[in-house]
């Protein structure tokens, strides 16, 4: 079907998207690489000359570097585990017959429409504030000491906020997957007397594996870039400084473009490691 003619036409049609994205990737990447080898301090007169790999060495030897990798992985991992697990359970529930399914579905997907800044502000102030927050009232009602969410449970708090935002996305995709499951197959297994847990494990879960992979892939891309939620809540204190937040601190708070750019290059490397890792798992799952 693919003639020579249609091949070249296809290339032509792909060209705008590819060229634009190539530009969007290459131009900033080149500039980041360029800055990363420079001592570039805007507040001290800008370009102060080439410094070789100084910025790269300084960025990784900083005491904040490894904790930031740790925080990044914990946040991404934590949110993925929570959203996928709860997403599967919620999708199973929503697939069951019930009254008012449409409205429940609306309620469940609503957090996805809330902008990250707003959700972070609302959670931080109106729920997690240790004095006026709703959680504090709830804890006091049960006679417990209110939790200092932002300082004593900083990472779990951020994971919770981000999970709330992404749970709808996971649920929706997983729900579509469940709904496409062949009813007959399920019924047959029911007839066979397979217990629900077994049915879930051997029929439903394998069927959903592809959807789960897609959820993990898409969410990872977005979660690596989580920023507003940290900026608004802890400002990077209490061990919540992720790699992208650390870069923000170097570039904007310290106004050290060279150092921040070196950090940017590390972030790109980390993203690619994760990407390759994901492709290995996902690619296989997506092919068949």
């Amino acid at each position, binding site marked *: 079907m693919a003639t020579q003619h249609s091949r070249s036409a296809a290339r032509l049609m792909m060209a705008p998207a590819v060229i634009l994205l190539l530009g969007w990737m290459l131009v900033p990447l080149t500039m980041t690489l360029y800055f990363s080898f420079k001592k570039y301090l805007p507040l001290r007169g800008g370009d102060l000359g080439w410094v070789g790999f100084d910025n790269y060495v300084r960025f990784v030897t900083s005491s904040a570097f490894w904790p930031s990798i740790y925080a990044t992985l914990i946040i991404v991992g934590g949110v993925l585990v929570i959203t996928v697990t709860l997403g599967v359970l919620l999708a199973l529930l929503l697939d069951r017959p019930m009254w008012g399914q449409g409205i429940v579905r609306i309620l469940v997907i609503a957090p996805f429409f809330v902008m990250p800044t707003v959700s972070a502000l609302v959670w931080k102030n109106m729920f997690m504030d240790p004095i006026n927050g709703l959680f504090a009232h709830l804890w006091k009602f049960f006679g417990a*000491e209110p939790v200092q969410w932002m*300082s*004593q449970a900083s990472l779990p708090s951020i994971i919770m906020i981000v999970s709330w935002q992404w749970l709808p996305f996971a649920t929706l995709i997983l729900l579509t997957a469940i709904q496409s499951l062949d009813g007959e197959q399920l019924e047959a297994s029911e007839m066979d007397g397979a217990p629900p847990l077994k049915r879930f494990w051997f029929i439903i879960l394998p069927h959903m594996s592809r959807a789960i992979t897609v959820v993990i892939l898409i969410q990872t891309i977005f979660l690596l870039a989580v920023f507003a939620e940290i900026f608004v809540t*802890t400002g990077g*204190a209490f*061990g919540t*400084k992720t790699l992208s937040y650390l870069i923000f601190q170097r570039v*904007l708070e*310290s106004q*050290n473009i060279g150092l921040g750019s070196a950090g940017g290059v590390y972030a790109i490397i980390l993203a690619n490691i994760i990407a390759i890792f994901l492709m290995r798992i996902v690619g296989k799952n997506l092919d068949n």
Partner: protein
Amino acid sequence: MKNSIRVLMGACALGALATASSAETITIATVNNGDMIRMQGYTDQFTAKTGIDVEWVTLEENVLRQRVTTDISTKGGAFDIMTIGMYETPIWGANGWLVPLDDLSAEYDVDDILPAMAGGLSHDGTLYAAPFYGESSMIMYRTDLMEKAGLEMPAAPTWEFVREAAAAMTDRDADINGICLRGKAGWGEGGAFITAMSNSFGARWFDMDWNAQFDTDAWANTLNFFVGMMNESGPAGYATNGFNENLSLFQQGKCGMWIDATVAASFVTNPAESTVADSVGFALAPDTGLGKRSNWLWAWALAIPAGTQQEAAAKQFIEWATSKDYIELVAENEGWANVPPGARTSLYENPNYIEVPFAQMTLDSILSADPNNSTVEPSPYVGVQFAAIPEFAGIATEVSQEFSAVYAGQQTVEEALAKAQALTNDAMEAAGYR
């Protein structure tokens, strides 16, 4: 294809629409503090007077800093007036990024600006930003609770007294904390407080060779005293409390004392917002007898980025917003207690204003802070609660994050100081000081 071109053209037209604007419009970036929001409300009067339209970009403090710093360091020109502080002004002025305010009109009376404020907003004797309001810090305390504790607040207390009084006022069952202080990470939040406090304990950020000084006893004493006092008498979770959190605690009657910005005085004595408005007293920020008090000096000021197309209009606006007339205007409509304080000498000579309960203490606090000589031992930097060097904001934010982790009980004072020492020296090395 035709459709796609049409869409593209549509998009271009939208872009063109966005850039077309009247020549007499100025864009002002400002912080979302009460006094600035009030100023926005009066903008119409400025427009009516001069025919110049004003577009406001009002942002939360941290977002504002990030936004204006990016714009000015790239010469982006997105704003005609920026609201900046005493930290940024001398640095930006030295870089030639700001329009010098050396030709303001005679009726503006530039000499009327409080010398402490003018000094902090100048570089090499040239004024680069006009103060909209200025502040120091002082003790605000509950007169009723102080009386109940059987104590009397001296006009100039020591830290020892403050700690004792705080312990005496604390009544955790009644939800009353003896003292509320900033513990929140960030150089302008908890970082500013602990730095100002450290001055009174004889500490400093750098010695004359720009070596970090966190390994000194003075810093250990400061932090240990702060943590000890807050654990005895502070609110739970003070590690995340900044200005706003403490303001709300104090207004709800949950603090015996609060040491913070003098501008807060008008909020805590405002019966519309504060449940304790009629029982607030004021005193100078405490000391330890070493000759320096723990009050800071700050001004929110309006500055014009160099290269703006609207320099003349921008200057007109600054002359209007920081004038004596503007103060009169606010006084007329909202009462003297609500005028922007701390910027002009004449305000404190005004018999109407000096009757305001916190006016004299504010002035005394401002006058007792000296940015050029803020530490007991000599230091190479200018600034009370900051060091006016470009690297400070980044370093101090990280340092204050380490301190906040102490306040939250996640590490010891020694660990935090060791980390602060290492990261400060590292950053100073990167910047080429050492």
